């Protein structure tokens, strides 16, 4: 599609320039002009108050979804253990359902997992759809998709949320394509638009330092995945819920895959999501020895070390310590970012920290915009100085 500016309507307000994620609009003689680098993404269309941004896209009619009701959460379990993200999603689902005046339901699939329903109810589920069958014992894309497709067709939910885990990120896209709906990955914020009553899904986007709010106006259920650790689980002991078992008719022959073996690896996995203090390093740390210094600082503060994608790719720190969009999301009391420029992929994983300290040589580094306290300087001087002052009794 093509986007263009009606010059006589344009008043040069620059809203489109700010909205463009690709820097593809500039002001020329007081009027907006679209540059060749335009990808036709359409982000500028909505922001123009003058309706001067035009496109050849045909306006699409929004179907009637008034029969759609219910905020559903896929309750992920493996080996009979619920993933914490399922309870976090129920907390959020409860909020969304209240705004819509609809109810919260959980989907619990597996073999002999019925006892988990109680936990789901205690965390806000008003209904638990329980599907049990030997075919569902281990998570597999196709059987799980078949079951969820049938449930969606029968009960017509409005919203369906899944955790952005290795299971959720496998299942959600499969289900969305099967039932013909859009899907937004790794949302950091979910809310109901008070006017349109649709789900507003916010996530880092365009591979850059922008957040995008995404809507799914043309299909139901509105599907989104959310990273573990982003939302908060809430216990509601007085909540009443109904468990609804349903028959599962699946054939092993159509499953497509057979799980031959599940191997648990006793990796020394540091649970960053539980850490109170995190000292994190990025490109600026320079080498593995630099991380040993951060390790000493973390030890003095009763915390742990973490790293950016670059630090992990350079081999300075293990992949299980990566914070960010492709790593873990953390919410410590204190996050000390050393030599981290603060690309949005990293910030997506740490912006829920209570307090953020940034140490960076480059005063223009975006990390300073999200920091409570910033030190512009070489971390090779600053970090040892912190260690020295902490050791010399500053803690006392």
């Amino acid at each position: 599609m093509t986007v263009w500016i009606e010059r006589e309507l344009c008043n040069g307000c620059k809203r489109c320039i700010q909205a463009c994620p690709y820097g593809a609009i500039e002001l020329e003689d007081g009027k907006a002009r679209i540059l060749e680098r335009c990808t036709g993404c359409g982000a500028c269309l909505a922001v123009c108050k003058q309706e001067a941004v035009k496109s050849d896209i045909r306006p699409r009619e929004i179907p009637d979804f008034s029969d759609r009701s219910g905020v559903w959460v896929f309750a992920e379990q493996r080996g009979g253990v619920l993933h914490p993200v399922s309870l976090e999603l129920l907390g959020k689902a409860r909020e969304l359902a209240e705004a819509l005046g609809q109810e919260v339901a959980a989907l619990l699939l597996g073999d002999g997992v019925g006892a988990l329903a109680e936990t789901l109810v205690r965390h806000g589920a008003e209904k638990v759809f329980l599907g049990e069958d030997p075919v569902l014992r281990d998570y597999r894309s196709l059987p799980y998709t078949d079951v969820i497709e049938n449930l969606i067709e029968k009960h017509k939910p409005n919203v369906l949320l899944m955790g952005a885990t290795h299971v959720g990120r496998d299942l959600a896209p499969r289900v969305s394509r099967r039932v013909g709906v859009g899907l937004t990955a790794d949302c950091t914020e979910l809310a109901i638009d008070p006017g349109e009553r649709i789900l507003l899904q916010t996530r880092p986007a365009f591979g850059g330092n922008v957040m995008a709010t995404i809507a799914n106006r043309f299909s139901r259920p509105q599907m989104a995945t959310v990273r573990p650790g982003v939302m908060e689980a809430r216990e509601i002991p007085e909540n009443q819920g109904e468990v609804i078992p349903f028959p599962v008719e699946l054939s092993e022959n159509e499953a497509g895959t057979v799980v031959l073996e599940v191997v648990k690896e006793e990796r020394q996995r540091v649970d960053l999501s539980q850490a109170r203090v995190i000292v994190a390093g990025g490109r600026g740390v320079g080498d593995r020895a630099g991380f040993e210094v951060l390790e000493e600082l973390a030890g003095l503060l009763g915390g742990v070390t973490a790293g950016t994608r670059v630090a992990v790719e350079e081999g300075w720190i293990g992949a299980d310590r990566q914070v960010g969009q492709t790593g873990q999301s953390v919410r410590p009391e204190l996050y000390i970012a050393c030599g981290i420029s603060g690309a949005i992929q990293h910030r997506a994983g740490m912006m829920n920290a209570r307090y953020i300290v940034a140490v960076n040589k480059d005063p223009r580094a975006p990390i300073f915009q999200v920091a409570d306290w910033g030190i512009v300087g070489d971390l090779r001087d600053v970090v040892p100085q912190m260690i020295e002052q902490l050791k010399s009794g500053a803690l006392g």
Partner: protein
Amino acid sequence: MKIIVLVKQVPDTTEVQLDPKTGNLIREGIESIMNPDDRHAVEAAVGLKEMLQARVTAVSMGPPQAVDVLSEAIGMGVDEGILLSDRAFAGADTWATSTTLGRAVEVIGEYDLVICGRQAIDGDTAQIGPQVAEYLRIPHVSYVSGIESVEADAVVVRRRLEDGFERIRCSMPALLTVIGELNVPRYPHVGRLIDACREKAPIKVWNVADLGLKTAEVGLEGSLTHVVKTFAPKFQRRSEILQGDTRTVVSGLLDRLKEIRVI
């Protein structure tokens, strides 16, 4: 055996910086690269080709300059490339993208395996692989960290989990999405790479008509999700830059941390 590998050209986002005045992205000087996970997908395909005498086709959707990643894939040992390029593809969400890529695989026709990277670093959604598999109605395995064996009508792979891995037998044709742990990608062979950048390189360009799709099914128009607004993230932070020599700023910082009782 026939293998189709899906690759994407992405901006090297590790270099991204913000304009301190406007809060906008500085895009000048950012290099375009083959998406890192996709490089492992190409390596997997070429590795299988060497073992099983497969024919490998690389497919990419993108603007004309995305032909570079196909040349690179051919340099690494892929036999031919197909670039899906059309203004109509622009602004696609994962629904419209999986329609386009899935349709391209259908048009190619014969295949045993489709291999792609788990996710692209410019979107990080990890949705395209499973959605293309569903479009094609074939089974898939995502987060593949090892390919153990290829049998007549099935492949045995390892799928990475948060706390270990699964060994899975998946019937073919199948789609695999792979992660970096799977292999070490080779560098392109210089001679092959130079040939792959010439005019007579085995690279075809297909547009929306070549795929037999309507423009309303692809790109922004064919998308089911739409961006309502974009904004630079704002934080309620103190944003205090401490001033002075190293000793002063550090003691100032520690004082503040004590004040809020974090240390």
